[in-house]
């Protein structure tokens, strides 16, 4: 909502300048921004066009003599509306306009031009670029334009929260301001008219289908209006808040809405086609062309104003084109109604419309405001258009809205605010806000004003008191009594540990979008969760895995020239396991991927080592061991639908906690990536965090010497080293502490289709120094078992 400072000052005396008023309103909860940034206009001054003739060498240009308060300068101007005698915004030579546009001395078609006469768009004031900006004739030549603008059209932009429909008006904003700065609130000048016989009833009657949709409908008639452009004062007011003047009738309706907040609608009475107004819901198949010349398909979602037969307006949203006021209009019907807020909102949403009227009605209008706005319009119409009011008013208001009173207690106010606010402040504040306040010190019975539908409960009143008191005046308390809990405060504590381990292993953490295209999420055989109203097709589904995002990020960086990439992400992935909300499963995962090289080229090593499955396996080993997860093993995984090939599931005590392998080429081909080999892992993060939390128990350090032995077996190529390793361990009795393959050797001397695998075995006892007689039988047994199981020969 744009608020004109001059307009605001009609209702409240404030000495403040625009910035101070904006700050005060902001601290009242009406977030304000200065409407116009004048910081770039300080070079521009006010000038007067002393003379204006056609440019001798150009048809569309004019040659002007501009007086800048000091001297007269020649200026070439192309605007159609420039004329002698005008006061204009003048940018002298050397000044800089918004957009860093510097004015220089120029020769245009042979004529010297020293400066520029500016349009509003050139100065960034508005989009108006059809002509130059023409100022008031009282403007002082040579003075700064900024001062003129501040005086004439200073405005602020307010961000009105949904609970404050009353502040969609200058009067409403002025009321808050007046209460805060303890100033008197002035109200618009108009009076309720008296009449003896209600002649309006001869012209119109109003019937409701359902009074809940429209509790109040005020209507009246003005005859013999003259529709023409509005007088200057009215135009200026509307323009100062960015509204385009149309004609005096429409402008009055808009003016009253911006002034008092209540939307009214004015019909051409002679085009209504009946004397009866029937307010009812739309019917399927019904249509209306609205003021904006768009044909709207109606339904029972919308409330309509009809002439008994067909719709003439969509209630509270927009009038119909057919019954609109035109230059030919003579007699008018003024509607000032109070519509039910949810009804209007439903209709506006169904039609995809949001208008100045609908915004006010759907937040809750003022049932009494309907009547005052009506009289305000009548007065203005008579004054401005010369029309004659038909004495009388049609005002069916079957169920009067009664504001229930609310009890405000000292105890609750003190408890919630945490500070003590004086009785007089409370009573004065609420009274000034429009409450009817009765009672004293311990409790007050307060009846809120009809324009504040948001004040229904004691807490609402407490907020009003603290709000005006000033949040900054409530002292902050730095000591509080509270509970002490001894459980681990953060169930995701493990994540920061995991991230620090992985960053030590060279992984960089990323966060990717959870919203992805259907194509991407469908790479895996998982039914994705679909978004009903996506931003675009590329974000229509929720991710089914973190791999797609990691691959996109890898591709992005690879193309930027990063040859070595290790990326990791944690987050939720989603699956639609069965239909409906209950069938949605969120899985908490950790995934990483490596690509390119894993060592950097340097002077020390010209050969960079490429990423590989085993490189990643080593990293995963390191991660798990650092998390104190020990008894895990890699089991070959045959399920290729998981997105990995050459995959191994990572098991802990028989339970799968993750998977590791080559990233399936399906990803690359579907996502059009040309990355070559990538290797990845995926963990169930909840399981990993649970295991990482397990208690570590200290094992006493064995002090007896270790005995190392090497065994070199020749086996057939297809024998798996990991299997042999496991067999050795399983036969190591209690003294074999560690086995590791240290060399794999292939050569003719070993035999065709064979390989020699060297294992290093470490024996140690916790109770004595091992001797050959302890170790040899174990070694012999290992050799026997391995030889037999794998047809191995000792080399």
């Amino acid at each position, binding site marked *: 909502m744009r608020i004109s400072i001059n307009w605001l000052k009609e209702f409240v005396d404030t000495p403040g300048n625009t910035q101070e008023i904006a700050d005060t309103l902001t601290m009242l909860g009406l977030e304000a921004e200065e409407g116009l940034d004048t910081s770039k206009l300080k070079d521009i001054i006010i000038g007067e066009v002393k003379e204006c003739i056609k440019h001798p060498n150009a048809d569309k240009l004019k040659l002007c003599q501009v007086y800048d308060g000091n001297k007269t300068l020649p200026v070439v101007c192309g605007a159609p509306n420039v004329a002698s005698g005008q006061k204009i915004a003048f940018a002298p030579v050397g000044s800089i306009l918004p957009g860093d546009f510097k004015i220089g001395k120029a020769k245009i078609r042979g004529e010297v031009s020293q400066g520029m006469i500016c349009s509003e768009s050139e100065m960034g004031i508005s989009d108006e670029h059809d002509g130059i900006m023409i100022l008031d004739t009282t403007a002082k030549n040579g003075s700064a334009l900024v001062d003129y603008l501040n005086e004439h059209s200073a405005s602020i932009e307010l961000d009105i929260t949904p609970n404050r429909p009353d502040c969609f008006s200058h009067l409403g904003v002025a009321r808050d301001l007046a209460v805060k700065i303890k100033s008197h609130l002035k109200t618009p000048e108009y009076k309720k008219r008296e009449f003896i016989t209600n002649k309006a009833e001869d012209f119109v009657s109003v019937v409701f289908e359902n009074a809940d949709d429209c509790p109040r409908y005020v209507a009246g008639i003005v005859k013999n209006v003259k529709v023409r452009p509005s007088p200057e004062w009215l135009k200026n007011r509307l323009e100062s808040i960015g509204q385009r003047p149309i004609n005096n009738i429409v402008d009055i309706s808009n003016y009253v809405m911006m002034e008092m907040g209540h939307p009214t609608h004015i019909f051409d009475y002679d085009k209504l086609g009946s004397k009866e107004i029937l307010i009812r819901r739309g019917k399927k198949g019904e249509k209306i062309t609205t003021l904006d010349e768009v044909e709207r398909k109606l339904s029972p979602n919308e409330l309509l104003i009809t002439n008994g037969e067909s719709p003439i307006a969509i209630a509270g949203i927009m009038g119909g084109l057919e019954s609109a006021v035109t230059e030919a209009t003579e007699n008018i019907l003024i509607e000032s109604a109070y519509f039910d807020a949810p009804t209007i909102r439903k209709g506006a949403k169904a039609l995809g419309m949001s208008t100045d009227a609908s915004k006010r009605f759907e937040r809750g209008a003022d049932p009494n405001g309907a009547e005052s706005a009506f009289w305000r319009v009548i007065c203005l119409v008579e004054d401005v258009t010369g029309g004659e009011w038909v004495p009388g008013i049609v005002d069916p208001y079957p169920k009067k809205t009664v504001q229930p009173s609310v009890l405000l207690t000292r105890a609750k106010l003190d408890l919630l605010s945490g500070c003590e606010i004086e009785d007089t402040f409370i009573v004065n504040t609420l009274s000034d806000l429009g409450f009817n306040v009765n009672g004293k010190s311990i409790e007050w019975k307060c009846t809120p004003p009809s324009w504040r539908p948001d004040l229904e409960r004691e807490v609402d009143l407490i907020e009003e008191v603290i709000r005006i008191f000033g*949040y900054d005046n409530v002292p902050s308390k730095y000591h509080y009594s509270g*509970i002490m809990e001894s459980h681990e405060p953060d169930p*995701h504590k493990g994540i920061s540990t995991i991230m620090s381990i992985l960053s030590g292993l060279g992984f960089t953490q990323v966060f990717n979008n959870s919203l992805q295209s259907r194509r991407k999420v469908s790479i895996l055989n998982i039914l994705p969760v679909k978004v009903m109203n996506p931003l675009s097709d590329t974000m229509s589904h929720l991710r089914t895995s973190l791999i797609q995002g990691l691959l996109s990020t890898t591709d992005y960086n690879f193309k*930027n020239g990063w040859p*070595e990439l290790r990326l990791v992400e944690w987050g939720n992935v989603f699956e639609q396991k069965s239909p409906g909300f209950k069938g949605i499963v969120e899985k908490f995962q950790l995934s990483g991927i490596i690509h390119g090289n894993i060592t950097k080229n340097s002077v020390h090593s010209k050969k960079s080592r490429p990423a590989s499955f085993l490189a990643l396996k080593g990293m995963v080993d390191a991660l798990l061991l650092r998390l104190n997860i020990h008894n895990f093993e890699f089991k070959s995984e045959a399920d290729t639908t998981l997105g990995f090939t050459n995959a191994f599931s990572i098991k802990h005590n028989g339970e799968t906690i993750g998977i590791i392998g080559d990233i399936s080429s399906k990803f690359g081909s579907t996502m059009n990536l040309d990355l070559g080999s990538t290797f990845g892992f995926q963990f169930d993060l909840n399981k990993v965090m649970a295991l990482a939390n397990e208690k570590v128990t200290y094992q006493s350090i064995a002090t007896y010497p270790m005995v190392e032995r090497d*065994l070199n077996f020749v086996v057939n190529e297809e024998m798996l080293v990991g299997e042999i390793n496991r067999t050795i361990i399983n036969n190591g009795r209690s003294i074999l502490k560690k086995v590791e393959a240290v060399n794999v050797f292939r050569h003719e001397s070993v035999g065709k289709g064979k390989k020699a695998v060297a294992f290093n075995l470490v024996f140690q006892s916790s109770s004595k120094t091992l001797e*050959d007689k302890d170790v040899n039988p174990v070694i012999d047994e290992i050799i026997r078992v391995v030889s037999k199981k794998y047809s191995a020969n000792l080399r």
Partner: protein
Amino acid sequence: MKLKESIESVRNLFRADSDPFPKNSESTEELRVKYMGRKGLVADLFSSMKDVSSDERPLAGKLLNELKQEIASVFDSHKDSPDDPMKIINGESDYTLPGLKFPTGNVHPLQQTMEDIKSIFMNIGFSVTYGPEIDDDFHNFSALNFPPEHPARDMQDTFFIDPETVLRTHTSNVQIHLMEEQDPPLRFIVPGRVYRNEAISYKSYCLFHQVEGLYVDKHVSFADQKGILEYFVKRMFGSDAKMRFRPSFFPFTEPSAEVDIWSEKRGQWLEILGCGMVDPEVFKSVNIDSDVWHGFAFGMGVERICMLKYDIDDIRLLYQGDMRFLEQF
């Protein structure tokens, strides 16, 4: 000692055999088997340990191990680089060369900010809890006093899965889950990912992370809320951070406020969080007696705080995964 002599002779033999060091892997392997194989010379020496008297055994063991290490280190040193870039002449070395390169990774700035926020609140006794990203209308809206057909619903552009299921627009849904499951007093923060159906630009993204806070007890006041949030702001942005509380509106709090901090650099107030006293309607929806229990709730955008902290001017950078950005943190 006989063994000692044998050790020395094996050492000399190896030094002769390994200089020059074999050029191909086959001869290297042969050399390895000769000395380090199961029946190699070093293994022989180990097996003759049994003949050494127990007095001399520790010394013999030490010498033997030294030999084994020497041999192993020669094999190791010839694994990769044939010539040493460090050499200058006469055994002098060039220490101005770059060090060996080890990979480094980076923890995402959002993660770091999230950890900062969590630790500040955990310091003053808040616990942390989490909840679902997809939730029903009740937990995301209705129970938080967003009635159907209320304009407050327009404050948050929502992604729907179906008319009754949404991608949560705030982590406040967890407030409701928490109060359904636990009785007050409660003191929690709730970090998590939230979604808004807003066009993507430098200042908004279709999702972001939020930390919601909830503190419910018998005597929690607006003044307590101010104290706790001031503590947070000063810990996060420095004890000289300038801040203000200004009235605002959220359906689930009354009175409601927004907190701004002053940015000297931009010369303006910047909003960093919303807060307020828990609305009695919210307590009602989870069957907590609002005459007995009071509290406050707050919510902040982690991205916004992260961007202020590191002076990042485009939110999209946080989701692009660009290494040129991430390696700076």
